Each structure stands twice: as structure tokens, then as C-alpha cells.
């Protein structure tokens, strides 16, 4: 039986925190199937990696990760104060030819049911919102 859960992490924007993020997602989704957990972990991971690698231009920075599980599903909010990102500038990868860039956002779109990005501005943080609905019960 699922129960409402919420967890917030305030993280330094370094790739060393990625394992901690994966563990936090697994912890909040421990009642779910391994595949659902993996997909959720990867979606959150890819967005966080994007923030870590691009939001602060290599300078020190921090970001906030809010994980929530409730009756509707799993939602994630990722906020940072860094450089705004333009998702539209990332082209879809050509999956028939191996590529070295572009899989990250493609995977996030494929593995989530909702994905929104709001660039920040004066007194406003950049915000990613992801949502993944619970899988339907199997067996009818």
C-alpha cells in the first residue's frame, strides 16, 4: 500500500551527489517494481546531471531536489539559481545512428508522464518539474 511521502535534498552541484540522489529516489519508491524505480532514478538523474554540468558554468553552486510520492504518482521538482537552460535547443537524437549527445533529455521525456521547465529570472529560480504516474495493476 502506497503512503504519501516527501523528501527534500539541498545539494551541491557536483556529480559526486548523483549516487545519493539515486538512493533517495529508491527509498521513496521502495514499494515499486525494480524497473519503475530504475526509470524514475534515471529520469531524475539525467535532469540533475544537466543542472550540475550546465547551470553554474563549472563554478560552485547548489540545487534543491524535492521528491514526492502520493496517490497520483511520483513527482519531482528540481530548482537552481544558475544559468537558464533551453530544452528546445536540444535536438532529438537519431536513434538509428549512435550519438554521443542528446540521449539525456530524450530518456527523461520517454520515462516520465509530465516534464516541464520554467527558466528563472530576477528573484526566480530555474525549475524542472517531472511526474511519473503509478503503473496500472497487472493482471486486470
Amino acid at each position, binding site marked *: 500500500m502506497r503512503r504519501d511521502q516527501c523528501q527534500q535534498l539541498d545539494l551541491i552541484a557536483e*556529480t559526486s551527489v548523483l549516487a545519493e540522489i539515486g538512493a533517495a529516489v529508491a527509498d521513496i519508491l521502495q514499494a515499486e517494481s525494480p524497473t519503475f524505480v*530504475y526509470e524514475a532514478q534515471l529520469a531524475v538523474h539525467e535532469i540533475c*546531471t544537466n543542472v550540475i554540468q550546465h547551470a553554474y558554468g563549472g563554478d560552485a553552486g547548489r540545487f534543491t531536489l524535492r521528491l514526492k510520492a502520493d496517490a497520483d504518482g511520483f513527482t519531482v521538482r528540481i530548482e537552481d539559481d544558475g544559468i537558464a537552460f533551453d530544452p528546445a535547443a536540444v535536438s532529438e537524437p537519431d*536513434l538509428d545512428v549512435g550519438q554521443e549527445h542528446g*540521449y539525456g533529455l530524450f*530518456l527523461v521525456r520517454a520515462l516520465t508522464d509530465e516534464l516541464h521547465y520554467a527558466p528563472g529570472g530576477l528573484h526566480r529560480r530555474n525549475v524542472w518539474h517531472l511526474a511519473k504516474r503509478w503503473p496500472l495493476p497487472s493482471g486486470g
Partner: protein
Amino acid sequence: MNVELQHFVRRLVVVRPAGRVDAFTVDELKQTLTTALDGGLTELVVDLQAVDFLDSAGMAVLVSALKRARGEGGDVRLIWPVSEGARRILRLTRFDRVFEMLDADWSPTAAGLQVEA
């Protein structure tokens, strides 16, 4: 009559990363593959069975190695990961079409290769 014999050896290297292959850990795999290719070893098998998490950074390293190996007349083949989540991601990104995928029961000796210690 003179008979000349020439032996040719084609080397295959199996690379076995374990654990997480992600933006934090990927440099070691990248360095290993680069070192092999720099050394003229262009037939590589990357065994993903012990990889429990693979992200786009890890995938990029595999593609980079693939392109270089094929450009030099070789190839990079992948052994499927055990994790069903990771397997799904490889299918989703069509890695199973871009790479030749090998099953868990693949072995160099079964493929007719002699293992060099």
C-alpha cells in the same frame, strides 16, 4: 618446394565495468576504452552484466568507442546487462540495433577465440 607459414593474431578485449556507469564514474571506463583503442585493440566487448546503473554519459562513452573502433576496422559489442531496467533503456535508445548485442552465455572461447592470460 618451400612452404611458408604466417600466423596472424586478431585480439579481442573484454571490458567489464561494474556498479554505476554514470557522469560521476564514467571517466574510468572512458580511459580504459581509449587506452585499448590507442593501443590498436579495435575488437572490444563491453560486458554490462555487472552494471547496475547506466546513464546517458555512459552511453555516450560506448558510442564514442564504437565509432572509433568501426572507423579503424573493428567493433564494440555489448553483453546485455542483467538489470531489466537497464535492458529496457538499451532497447528504448535502440542501442540493441546500433551495437551487436551478446547474450550472457557468450564467451570468447565459445566464439572460437583462444584466451590469452
